[in-house]
Each structure stands twice: as structure tokens, then as C-alpha cells.
């Protein structure tokens, strides 16, 4: 296997904003004193006049974004997932979601892979929170190629979008030349007949590895990447349930309210089969290197393999 290129999706996000700045001359980017970390600093360098630092005041930033959007300009508001979805939740709901304003939220440092900063900054609840807002679109890209394509797709889409990016450099597995992002469409990366592994974000690459390991043990696993968590691709999930009879979901998020819950909601309504959830099991994280934490919390190929085998046995 050729050398795997690794890149954090937050990096892809910042680069995409800068690359698209010419094509979208009315794009304004807001941040809350985290431009160096969220990587909106790359946009700031390219277009300082269209970068607005709101200081450490996420609630106001979301309201400012709503006001800018109401005047017809495109706007991204950035912070860590914890503060964008968590601290500013009610502003996102009432000032952005309720009037269905065209605000894009760029939330970085999602999940346990924040690492050393620990539990206060490891947001494993943002997807759950954002899913409850009517009309909110949620995108959780899996790698650099998908993240960049998703930023452009979000800019071309009219309405509020929550985008989730990671801090940790993760393998780039999509092919830049052939990749096409379709909002709301799941992507079947590998066919299989014994189980469907439905994954999102950095867990998609783990799911692919798990499928390879399972293949070696005679288990045929289908792998589906759900980059758009809301609205979710019901069709691909129902098809997977019908054709494989078993689903294992994988996400770097709480097992409560995230991808696993969304998939289970579809499956229980349309084609009840067993759904096993791999995710953060209703606990807070703690400090440590991201790679170690992912293993410790079971957010890795080995644990997906284990769960699949337990479910099949």
C-alpha cells in the first residue's frame, strides 16, 4: 500500500474557505478567537477584510451570523463544536434555525480526538443537539477530499448547515479527481452481504479497515459512509437492512442521539433488524493522545470487528 496521506478536516475546512473566497465574493467568515485552531485563519490571511473576529463570545457570534445572513450575504460562523453547538445552542435554534437563515456553522475539534484538552473540549453531543433543530442540515465529512467538497456544497445550499470537522490528522481515502459530493446521499464504499457497517467522519476509514479484517475471517461486510447525517439517506439504510439483516454503526460521538440513533430510527420504522452502535458510551472523555483515546473508547477498526462478530455469533 502506498504511503497514506493524513490531514485534519479542520485544515481542509480553512483551505476550502480560502480557495472558494474568489468564487464567493460575498462570503463572510466569523470566528470566536480560535482562528488559528479552527483554521479560518487561512481564510483570514487570504481575505482579511471579510474575516470578522467576534472574540470569545459565541452566543453573539451566532446572532451576528444570523443578522448578516438576513441581508443576503453568505456567512460561516466558526468555533469548536463544544461552543458552537453546545454553548450557543439556543441562539442557533432561535436566531438561525427558527427563521431558517442561510448560516453555515463550521464546528471544529469535534469528538474525543481533541485529545489532551480533555473532557471539557471533547464534544460528543453536537450531532444529537443539532439533529433536534427543525430544518438543520448536518454534514460530518470523513476526510480531506470530502470535507472540501462539502464546504462548497454547503455554500451552494440555501439554509442552515452544521458542519463538523476534526482536529486529528486522518487518512485521505477519497480520490480527489473522481470524488463527487451529493448532499443527503450516503456512499456505499464496499459491498457486502453479512453485515452493513454504517459510519461517519473519521470512523469511515476505520470501518473500511474493519471490513478488510472481517473479509479475512470470511465475513462479508458492506461499508456505507453517511456524510450527511440530516437529512439522512433513508433509502441506503433500508436497503442495507433488507439485504444484510444486521447493521453496526460507527461514529466519534455519543451513542445517544447521533448517527447510530438516526439509523436505528429509520430501521425500526421501515425494516427492523439488529442495530449495534459503536460510539462514545454515555461517558465523558479525558486527557490523552488522540490516537490512544480512540482506541480506549473503542473508536477503532478492532472494536468494530469485535462488535460485528458478537452480533453475528
Amino acid at each position, binding site marked *: 500500500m502506498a504511503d497514506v496521506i493524513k490531514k485534519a478536516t479542520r485544515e481542509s475546512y480553512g483551505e476550502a474557505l480560502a480557495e472558494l473566497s474568489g468564487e464567493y465574493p460575498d462570503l463572510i467568515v466569523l470566528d470566536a478567537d480560535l482562528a488559528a485552531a479552527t483554521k479560518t485563519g487561512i481564510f483570514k490571511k487570504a481575505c482579511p477584510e471579510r474575516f470578522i473576529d467576534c472574540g470569545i463570545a459565541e452566543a453573539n457570534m451566532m446572532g451576528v*451570523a444570523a443578522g448578516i445572513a438576513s441581508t443576503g450575504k453568505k456567512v460561516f460562523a466558526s468555533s469548536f463544536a463544544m461552543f458552537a453547538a453546545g454553548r450557543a445552542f439556543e441562539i442557533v435554534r432561535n*436566531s438561525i434555525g427558527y427563521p431558517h437563515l442561510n448560516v453555515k456553522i463550521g464546528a471544529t475539534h469535534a469528538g474525543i480526538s481533541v485529545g489532551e484538552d480533555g473532557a471539557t473540549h471533547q464534544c460528543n453531543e453536537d450531532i444529537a443537539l443539532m439533529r433536534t433543530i427543525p430544518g438543520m442540515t448536518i454534514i460530518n465529512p470523513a476526510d480531506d477530499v470530502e470535507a472540501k467538497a462539502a464546504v462548497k456544497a454547503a455554500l451552494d445550499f440555501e439554509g442552515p448547515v452544521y458542519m463538523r470537522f476534526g482536529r486529528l490528522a486522518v487518512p485521505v481515502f477519497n480520490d480527489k479527481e473522481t470524488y463527487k459530493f451529493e448532499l443527503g446521499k450516503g456512499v456505499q464504499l464496499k459491498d457486502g452481504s453479512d453485515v452493513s457497517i454504517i459510519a461517519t467522519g473519521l470512523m469511515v476509514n476505520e470501518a473500511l479497515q474493519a471490513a478488510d479484517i472481517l473479509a479475512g475471517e470470511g465475513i462479508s461486510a458492506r461499508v456505507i459512509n453517511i456524510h450527511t447525517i440530516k437529512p439522512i439517506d433513508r433509502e441506503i439504510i433500508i436497503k442495507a437492512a433488507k439485504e444484510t439483516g444486521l447493521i453496526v454503526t460507527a461514529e466519534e460521538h455519543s451513542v445517544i442521539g447521533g448517527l447510530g440513533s438516526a439509523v436505528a430510527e429509520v430501521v425500526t420504522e421501515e425494516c427492523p433488524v439488529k442495530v449495534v452502535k459503536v460510539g462514545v458510551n454515555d461517558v465523558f472523555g479525558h486527557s490523552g493522545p488522540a490516537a490512544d483515546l480512540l482506541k480506549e473508547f473503542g473508536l477503532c477498526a478492532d472494536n468494530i470487528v469485535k462488535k460485528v462478530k458478537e452480533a453475528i455469533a
Partner: protein
Amino acid sequence: MDQTLKKQLQITACKVRMGIIEGVFNAKSGHPGGSLSIADTLTYLYFHKLHVDPKNPKMADRDRLVLSKGHTAPALYSVLSQRGFFPEEELKTLRKIGARLQGHPDMKHIPGVDMSTGSLGQGISAACGMALSGKLSDESYKVYAILGDGEVEEGQVWEAAMFAAHYKLDNLVAVVDNNGLQIDGKITEVCSPMPITDKFEAFGWHVITMDAHEFDSIEKAFDEAEKVSGQPVAIVQTSTKGKGVSFMENQVGWHGSAPNAEQYAQAMDELKAALASLEKEA
């Protein structure tokens, strides 16, 4: 102020008050007290100051008004209907199923509403965004935000205050309606936000005070606001909660309750008498 204009504004404000009572009475709920305290200010803005067109409510270069104290929607709806954004008759549908006139302002469905508000402290941030957007593309519109004095207890108001001063949003005017009462009692007794003027000054705003029920004072304040450059403007207005309806004035109980049939009749009689006397003088 020109006497003919003043008389006309007083007459309109009286009709706006009647619309507030009409709406809240028919809804059997709502917030008359704080609606009546901002009736004169909203009348002045919509009938004399704001560049708006009822026939084209989304006009790109219109002045914007964000009712950050969104619970006083009856006042905004009443003034918008007087100004011709929708029929006055519609005020009777306030808060009813199927109606456009939601309990709190809904920009998606109500002509003339520039921002959905209701959760206190949020409207001022949206107003900052509108003002900043205007600055970024060199547009001439102005943005007005109306806040309650209790509302400034919300921390988000001060995040917005810091932001507006930092970005020198001199196209933004925030009016703080200081009627002195909030749901749980006097603002000085609940969890005092006073002194409000000093706080805005400390945050870098140009602060003006005015009497909320005297059109000469209102005009003077907004004229001064227009001349300020390089700073956002806060107009702290001294007002009377429930102004114009004798038994509602300065009574905290009228913050969020509707009059019964008898109280409705008395309120309307008082306002009709005031209107008749104003029209006679005019």
C-alpha cells in the same frame, strides 16, 4: 418638532395603543405593559424615521428594526398594520392557530418583521450582524434594535455591546426601554442592571437619554443619534409600563396578562376619549 407632525404622531400612537389592546384582548394572552411603553417610539420610527416601504417589505436598502424585546410583538404588529404592512383587522388573529401573527415576531411570515425574536438578548446580536453587513458593502441603511431594561440582564447583550463598539457600528441604534419593571418586580429589586447608561458608555457607546412619551424628546434623541460617527448609539428611554391605559400604568401585573371584557372596554374607552380629544385639537 413641527406641531402638525407632533399631533399626527400622537394620533397614530393612540391608534397603535388601541391595536395593542385589541390584539391582546382577542388573544386572551400576551404582553400589553411593555408594548404600551414603546408605542410612541415605534410610531415615531415607522412614521417619521425609517426608510421602509409597506409595498416592498424586503427592499434591500430599507432601514431595519429588530424588536429584541420580542414579547412586545403586539406593539410592533400594531404599528406595522397602521403603516400598511398588513390589514389592521389581522391584529385580532394574534396568537391564534393558523395566524401569521405569532406570539413573538416571525420574520418568515409577517411582512415588515426584520428578525425573528423572543428569546431575550438575541435580537441585538442579529442587529449587529445587519449593521456590520451594511458597513462591509458600504450601504446606507440604518439598524434599530429595541431592548427591554430587564433584557439587558442577559449576558449576550453585553457580548453584542462589546462587538458593536469594536466594529464602530455607527449605523446601529439600540433603544433600551427603561420602564423599570420586569416579570418578578422592579428591575432594581429583581437583579438590578442599573445604571444602564453608564454600562453602555463603559462599553464604548454614545449614550442618549429621552422621555419615551414626548415626541419632542424622541425626535431630539434620534436626530442626535444620526449625527454620531464611529460609535454605536444607545438611547435609554424613560418610559411608563402600560402607558395610556390608566389601570395598567406602572403595574407589573400587566407585563404578561390580557384584559378581561370589562377591562378591555375601559381601556378602549380611555383610548377612544384620548383619540377624540387629539383629533379635536388637530
